[in-house]
């Protein structure tokens, strides 16, 4: 892939960053990425990012967990070996259901929580030994960085970003990936 040019505007305050994002958006420039040291409330809305669907996946994983619990307990306790254990009625699932509820609950939570976390890791491409994609180490401490793709309009973009209060504006070559 050929190298493309991006502009890095660095800010030192999240309020300044927010107003800069709004300005850049209103000028119809595409923001590639924003790096912040902590969550900035409302940034996703200002950037126009789509809301996350991870809660929906968690709900579905929970249903999977509930199904696993029911099928497992039904097979083990009712179908496979319906023993009389302390007089508990193992004749049908519903008759002995209260005893299975703690397991049904825990497996629902277990599946919902763990599979959602794994989904989050996969979707945000996070794993051990993953190479950090950090354009500037200061963005993990106290600086905010906005990355905008350059399509031959460097000067215009530079002056716009300078107006928004950027403390540093760099044009860098970026390996597309």
């Amino acid at each position, binding site marked *: 892939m050929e190298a493309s040019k991006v502009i890095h505007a660095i800010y030192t305050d999240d309020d300044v960053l927010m107003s800069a994002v709004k300005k850049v958006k209103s000028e119809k420039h595409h923001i590639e990425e924003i790096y912040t040291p902590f969550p900035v409330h409302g940034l996703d809305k200002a950037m126009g990012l789509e809301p996350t669907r991870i*809660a929906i996946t968690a*709900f579905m994983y929970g249903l999977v967990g509930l199904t696993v619990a029911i099928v497992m307990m039904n097979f083990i306790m009712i179908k496979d070996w319906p023993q009389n254990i302390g*007089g508990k009625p193992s004749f049908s699932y519903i008759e002995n259901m*209260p*005893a299975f*509820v703690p397991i049904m609950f825990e497996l629902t939570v277990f599946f919902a929580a763990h599979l959602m976390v794994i989904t989050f890791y996969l979707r945000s491409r996070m794993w051990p030994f993953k190479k950090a994609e950090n354009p500037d180490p200061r963005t993990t401490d106290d600086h905010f960085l906005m990355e905008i793709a350059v399509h031959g309009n460097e000067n215009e973009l530079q002056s716009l970003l300078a107006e928004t209060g950027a403390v540093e504006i760099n044009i860098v070559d970026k390996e597309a990936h």
Partner: protein
Amino acid sequence: MYTFSNKLKTFSIILVVLGILGVGYGFMTSHKSFEEVETLLEHEEHHGGGHGEEASHATSGHDTHAVADTHGNNHGNNDAHGGEDAHKKHVEHVMHQIANRPWAALYVAAFFFMMIALGCLAFYAIQIASQAGWSPVLFRVMEGITAYLLPGAVIVLLIAIASGTIGHYNLFIWMDPDVVAHDKLIQGKSGWLNLTGFAIRGVIFIAGWVAYRHFSRKFSIAQDTAEDKSYFKKSFRISAAFLVFFIYTESMMSWDWIMSVDPHWFSTLFGWYVFASMFVSGITVIALISIYLKSRGYLEFVNENHLHDVAKFMFAMSIFWTYLWFSQFMLIWYSNIPEEVTYFISRFNDYKLPFLGMVVLNFVFPILMLMNADYKRIPWFVVMTGLVILFGHYIDIFNMIMPATVGDRWFIGIPEIGSILLFAGLFIFVVFTALTKAPLLVKGYPFRKESEDFHY
């Protein structure tokens, strides 16, 4: 300032009138003579296919001992004398159940509306004690709802005492000296379960709750025009103190007013269980009244974010209620100790639909309807779910009282619906009258601004 619309006032008065007619009808038709009950039972035996037989075996209902005798007689000796005796006891038992029905219907509805006000008061105290930043714009709505606490709680206590003085022990058999004389278990509990103690404790509970309600309301209104924050500090202090008082008295109230209808039965988490029911009902009514007032344009400072928070509480407390309901049921079901499991056996045999139906209404429905964050911001959606939750918690109280008083002779008919209408009308009248007494926004409360700008 809110003005009580004439339409709503007329509506509430119509409800009260219809309710009184229904309750009156219930009391008029509940006095059956021995012969009438006898023919009724014969009639049922011919048509219902052994219903009478079933009823004589029921362990629920008032004189458990009489029933136990009947049971023994039916199985033990079939000679004419024993059979006749058992028949007489059976008829008397059913007669008593029929006579109990309007009392129990009235009591369930009275308690249900009282507990909405009490749950709301506890929520209000928690909001002040925790210095919540989102809820102050709803304080006046909560104060309006808790205005029903004084009349509501006094009515509940009066019905309970009347059932043991002018009534024929229609709610609490431990008030009947004749039953106590033949019942070792109740005799052992008579140190707590006696009418004088019951009345004194009831008065103390009500006095404590109403005193907090009175002063917190007074401080809240005084803070509107105060120069400093001293009234806020005072109401903070009494809220913290009230919450301590409340959790003790609420627990004892649940033993006295509800658990003692089954004086042979006891459960340790019962107080919490009743609390969960009243808390979620109270929060639901806050949501419903706020939505109503907002739709009439009285709460322009309340937005969908506040609704979202209230709906989250409805959702969470519905699950909390289910957790306690299931914990109580499952522990008793699992160990199956005869002395406590009869409570659920009578409910399971005679009350299958309300007993299991309320779990659907109070758990399955809210969890599916209120899980989505977007749905919690839609007023009509919260209203529909709220009505289902309220109905579910009425059934919850119904399930607590009815099996012990009317046994398998339950039905949701004119006495029950009449009682609901009566207290619903009274509740609407008292609450909306109280809402007209003060501006709907707390002016001087320190967190007012934060609450007005609240967004989630």
